[in-house]
């Protein structure tokens, strides 16, 4: 029997036994749908991390000098304690670095903590208060929707001016203009001079719940002890120049801290690569867990299909006997049942692909997770589904093929 006939027959059998076939392809369906759904999330976040997060949020060719790395998966307690004992980054460190860089860079100070911002009788809680120097906006790619950022002069003099994140402006001023209004942060009055464009969110974390004040303004005491910085931000004009600046920063910091050659750095130089490594760590967990889930579904799906096929062989023993009496060879019968099991599994995988794509769009639309379907996952899903069909079908089909035509014909 040609393959085409076997396939046609298989599809016809599936059509006439919709309910049974529907149940039997459920396992493969779930396996493939979850494969594509989860893969799409990982894929989407990957792209987001490499394209949007790294490029715009962290900043291109930018590094940060910090006490400890910002994104760190699975760090043991002992390491955390060692990091906590490290000296903090000081204003003087930042000034020394600024004076020493031999490549053109722009730099900014940054210290942040959560605070409540008040306007008259309204308040916005859990707002990230950032005390930063004036180039911060440039390095972070924060463009202003209204008003202006503060100037170097305002930064140095510690002027009580503030730039609001979009969510804070919305919360406190709704649709009135916040410009030149006075808000209170930690008991100090600040004049609003600008509002930053809406940033949206990353992985569900809102990016607009912040305010930025000059690094030397009164609120600096709310975020850090005097003279201390969370991070010193350095943006170079190119990747090689950033590397050079990082080398210089490392050398200067080591000499300022009197580290001997064998001692490790007691500070961190974070780049967007660090963030990506952090994400790679998380996605690696997914990459380990995901195949497990998919595998379990597919194995269950395979067992279900094998059972259904064994039942089909038992039910259709007489038909098999008849086909053999009419000239079907073993391989014809084998092919017929194998085609049926592969067809069931492939249809399951196909429906799973459609459901997985649907799931992806649903996730992308209804949640902050950026999901995007990977063509490789579709191919893999269908191939694995068909593979399950082959594996699950071999035993029932070979049983059918070995049936003795006389006994098979006699069966009621």
């Amino acid at each position, binding site marked *: 029997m040609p393959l085409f006939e076997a396939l046609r027959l298989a599809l016809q059998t599936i059509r*006439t036994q919709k309910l049974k076939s529907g149940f039997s392809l459920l396992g493969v369906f779930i396996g493939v749908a979850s494969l594509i759904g989860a893969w799409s999330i990982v894929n989407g976040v990957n792209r987001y991390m490499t394209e949007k997060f790294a490029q715009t949020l962290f900043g291109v060719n930018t590094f940060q000098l910090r006490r400890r790395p910002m994104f760190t998966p699975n760090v043991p307690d002992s390491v955390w304690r060692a990091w906590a004992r490290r000296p903090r980054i000081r204003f003087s460190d930042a000034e020394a670095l600024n004076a020493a860089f031999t490549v053109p860079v722009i730099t900014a100070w940054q210290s942040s903590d959560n605070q409540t911002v008040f306007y008259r009788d309204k308040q916005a809680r859990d707002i990230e208060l950032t005390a930063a120097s004036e180039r911060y906006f440039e390095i972070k790619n924060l463009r202003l929707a209204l008003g202006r950022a503060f100037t170097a002069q305002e930064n140095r003099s510690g002027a009580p001016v503030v730039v609001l994140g979009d969510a804070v402006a919305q919360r406190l001023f709704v649709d009135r203009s916040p410009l030149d209004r006075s808000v209170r942060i930690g008991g100090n009055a600040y004049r609003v001079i600008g509002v930053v464009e809406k940033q949206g969110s990353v992985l569900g974390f809102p990016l607009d719940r912040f305010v930025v004040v000059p690094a030397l303004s009164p609120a600096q005491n709310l975020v850090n002890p005097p003279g201390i910085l969370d991070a010193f931000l350095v943006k170079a004009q190119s990747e090689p120049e950033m590397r050079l600046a990082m080398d210089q920063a490392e050398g200067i910091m080591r000499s300022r801290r009197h580290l001997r050659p064998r001692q490790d750095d007691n500070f961190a130089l974070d780049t967007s690569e660090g963030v990506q490594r952090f994400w790679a760590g998380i996605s690696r967990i997914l990459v380990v867990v995901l195949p497990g889930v998919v595998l379990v579904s597919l194995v269950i799906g395979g067992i279900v299909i094998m059972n259904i096929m064994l039942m089909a062989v038992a039910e259709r023993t007489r038909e098999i006997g008849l086909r053999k009496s*009419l000239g079907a060879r073993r391989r014809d019968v084998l092919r017929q049942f194998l085609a049926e099991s592969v067809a069931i599994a492939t249809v399951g995988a196909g429906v799973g692909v459609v459901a997985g794509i649907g799931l992806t769009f649903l996730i992308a639309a209804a949640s902050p997770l950026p999901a995007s379907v990977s063509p490789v996952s579709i191919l893999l899903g269908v191939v694995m589904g068909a593979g399950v069909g082959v594996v699950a079908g071999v035993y029932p089909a070979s049983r059918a093929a070995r049936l003795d035509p*006389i006994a098979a014909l006699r069966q009621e």
Partner: protein
Amino acid sequence: MFRTGDTPLPDVIILTHKLTRAYDMGGEVVRALQGVSLQIRKNEYVAVMGPSGSGKSTLMNLIGCLDTPTSGEYWLNGQKVSDLDDDELARIRNKEIGFVFQTFNLLPRASALHNVELPLIYAGAGARERRGRAARALERVGLGDRMEHRPNELSGGQRQRVAIARALVNDPSILLADEPTGNLDSTTSAEIMAVFRDLHGQGQTVVMVTHEHDIAAHAARVVTLRDGLIASDQLQAA
């Protein structure tokens, strides 16, 4: 007289020579056939009779190439088939033998036309050729207007005629019928016997296993088995 090493005469369609078949039934050997030598010529119409246990089903299975003998020779249409392997026997069944069963054995979900096409699928015929030949076979048994009907939309006699069309579609050397009227009332039985008579008249060799004397009476020759041996072999007037 045929001897081992001979080849049958050209017009001998079926030749069995000292055919035996023994089954091992849990240690006990049952000799279903104990040396059956039989020759059937082209365009004969033979009924095989015998009480149950006489070995007529075993002979039928051997003649139909569904089973292989324990010893002896079986020649079908000039070819020695008693020592062929499974796949070759499948090919012989496909090309040389047209089965008609007591219970029709039609695929319930397939149309009459598709049922008749089945042997042609295993013969490797293309879709268009299959349709054409299956349609002609159905017309031959008077079902040209029922081609798209399913078995459950047909009467018992019509179903058996579909089965006969299926048996004929590959132009077999023999039409091998196993109790073809066993599930039919007497009117319908007569109808089916008329079909057999017509086919025989057109030159078809027919071998029919039955235990009913009035059905066997339609055949030109009656072979009676008893205890695994031929008890009688008689020509009778049509």
